């Protein structure tokens, strides 16, 4: 299928562990200003706006109330997706494909530093009848899943420690990343246990930031001119919400999302046709699960690829941005942070971390504990 929609403007604020000098509105304004300037448009030329937010992360109910002004979107068609960043991107993409919009904006942000104890908010996402009364820390869900994954994969924790080391080092060349560091696998394994076998350094740390992407139709681009990063295919899926009924070793939602995105993009062999994989690594073991989903591998093969160093030595380019472990975790905005840096790679504007010969890339996202929702988008170079 010939791509019909592209990203033509990228606005991303550098991710930081704290941002006491700006409000979330000011962060969005900065990202929007950068994106509009990058696309060469004014907000009046945008037909529709999509923001991505969850009330409890914002500390505000009906949080879409506070989005239009800083985007230049007052009295315009604005909607909020209470979902993953890629679901927001998909919505903007579909609005353009439907024919009622030629241009669209998608926005997401994180002001994680405003949240004192995110675990307490995550606990409210557990089923109030069957799960919440157990009163466990939500990271324990990740610990359980990691244990099951390592068991089914037949590998030890060294594989996940290697993911951390690889991604934190990769982030050193990403100017948008908050947590670049030169640390080894031993250091990761020596970090404090959080929910055994999960260790402290295997959990991505929170970051503040905002991202705005401007999208346009192929016709608009042909008429007005722009450097397009094509959306070749996009998909998303939700698996079982209850903890008791879900598969723990395999990320089914990610496999379904990739299948949908690949089908639209006409991709038959991901490993041969995609040069760059940006997969969710909110917890280190998730990179392995998600890599298996992206490449259509059996459980455990992602871990063995990582142990063989193929994802670290450039043979298979996985999370060269540093991932959530290296860039920082911004809830549902994470997927769009990753989409923005990937779009820079495809355009050749990624700065010190720019790679050569990047023609096609996959971004694969996950909404975090305790969800089984994720998205996938295949992006193509101009």
């Amino acid at each position, binding site marked *: 299928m010939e791509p019909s929609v592209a990203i033509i403007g990228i606005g991303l604020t550098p991710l930081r562990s704290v941002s006491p000098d700006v409000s979330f509105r000011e962060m969005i304004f900065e990202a929007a200003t950068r994106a509009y300037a990058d696309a060469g448009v004014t907000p009046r030329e945008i037909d529709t706006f999509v923001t991505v937010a969850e009330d409890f992360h914002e500390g505000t109910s*009906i949080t879409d109330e506070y989005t239009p002004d800083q985007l230049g979107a007052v*009295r315009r068609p604005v*909607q*909020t997706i209470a979902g993953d960043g890629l679901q927001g991107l998909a*919505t903007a993409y579909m*609005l353009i494909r439907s024919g009622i919009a030629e241009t669209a904006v998608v926005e997401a942000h994180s002001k994680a530093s405003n949240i004192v104890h995110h675990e307490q908010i995550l606990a409210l996402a557990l*089923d109030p009848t069957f799960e919440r009364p157990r009163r466990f820390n939500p990271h324990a869900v990740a610990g359980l899943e990691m244990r099951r994954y390592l068991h089914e994969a037949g590998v030890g924790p060294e594989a996940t420690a290697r993911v951390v080391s690889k991604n934190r080092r990769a982030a050193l060349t990403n100017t948008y990343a908050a947590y670049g560091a030169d640390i080894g696998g031993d250091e990761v394994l020596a970090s404090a246990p959080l929910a055994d076998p999960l260790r402290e350094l295997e959990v991505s740390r929170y970051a503040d930031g905002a991202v705005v992407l401007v999208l346009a139709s192929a016709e608009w681009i042909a008429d007005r001119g722009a450097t397009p990063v094509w959306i070749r295919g996009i998909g998303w*899926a939700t698996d079982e919400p209850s903890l008791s009924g879900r598969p723990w070793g395999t990320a089914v939602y990610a496999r379904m999302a990739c299948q949908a995105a690949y089908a639209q993009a006409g991709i038959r062999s991901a490993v041969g046709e995609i040069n760059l994989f940006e997969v969710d690594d909110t917890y280190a073991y998730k990179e392995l699960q998600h890599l298996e989903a992206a490449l259509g591998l059996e459980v455990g093969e992602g871990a063995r690829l990582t142990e063989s160093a193929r994802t670290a030595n450039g043979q298979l380019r996985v999370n060269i941005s540093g991932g959530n472990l290296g860039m920082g975790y911004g809830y549902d905005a994470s997927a769009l942070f990753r989409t923005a840096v990937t779009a820079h790679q495809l355009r050749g504007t990624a700065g010190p971390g720019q790679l050569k010969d990047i023609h096609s890339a996959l971004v694969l996202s996950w909404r975090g504990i305790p969800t089984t929702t994720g998205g996938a988008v295949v992006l193509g170079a101009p």
Partner: protein
Amino acid sequence: MLPKGPRPRRRVAVVGAGLSLFARRALETGKELSYYAASAALESAGLRRRDVQAVVMASAPDAFDGVHMKGEYLSDGAGGWRKPYLRAYVGGGSGVFSIISGWTLVASGLFDVVLVVAEEKMSPTQPHPQAAFISIFDHTIERPLGPNLLWIFSLEQSRYMHTYGIANEDIARVSVKNKHNALGHPAAQLGAELTVEEVLASEVVAWPVHRLMVSPISDGAAAIVLAAEEVATRISDRPVWVEGIGWALDTSYWGNRDLAYPRYVEDAARMAYAMAGITEPRKEIHVVEPYDPFAYKELHHLEGLLLADRGKAPEDLANGRFDRDGPLPSCPSGGLMGVGNPIAAAGLMKLCELYWQLRGEAGARQVPNSPRRGLAQAWGDLMQIGTVAILGVR
């Protein structure tokens, strides 16, 4: 004459609709309410869950249930298990927005059959859901004042009455009409035969708003099934087409706006009219379901929708223009005032009503003269968002 707008690439139709009962305290969980409505909609369309390619969910604040990422929690009840599942959210406007969201999926060409579910369960908030609304206000400027929705909507009603010289008796007629209409609705929570005097004799909750001018606290769910033209014409004897959609969000700074007129509703309506090719809405809309969480809002919204002159909707109401058998039946379902107000579900309930009205299946509520086109509208946020959908039959 209004201008015509861009036409979508693909036609989308409603092919099924279903509701749960609306009730003050449903014993069912939100998942179960979603299941009832979704099942009823699928059954009416003659489809099963496996025929559905994607599911859209609408539900208003997570604060009601105290469930973070409420959409994820509701996913299996709504039929979203192992499917593309999406929750779009525009506060009180979410119910009517849900069809816009579902339309987007089908019109994009990525999906042919989409199930749209809207659910709200307000009753878990104790002792009263009004307390949850404190968290919608600006944390620095407004929350310290301890506002609630009754207060700010009483401000808006006052401004509306003052600007156009409207009496409270004129507003009370909305309650009388809608609660009467709801007596014919099998899912209704608060149908009643009332007089204007009885409405005005009910206690003042925040002047000039009386208790019987406010919609109730409700639990409930609604669902519709959307299909692309090639599917809809095959599986439905009378598909109801989505002819126009529109939405607009005004500034967050509601204190800076003139509350006498909902300009964002007009923005949304103009977008929908343009898409539907409607140039004279008062002639081309035959039945309307404007959002009526408060009695004055129905009148306010009829004006914003350009279906009545500014400040004149109360006069039209008094003259019977908006009666079920009047020239422009308004809220024939009984609206939020009569059927109930499970927020997102109430908005989608209005679209279910249009589906039944346009197919001639509304039973005791059926409006005369075989309407061919209807409009539903919802409103929300800080008196800020307008969402509009126009349905029609050929």
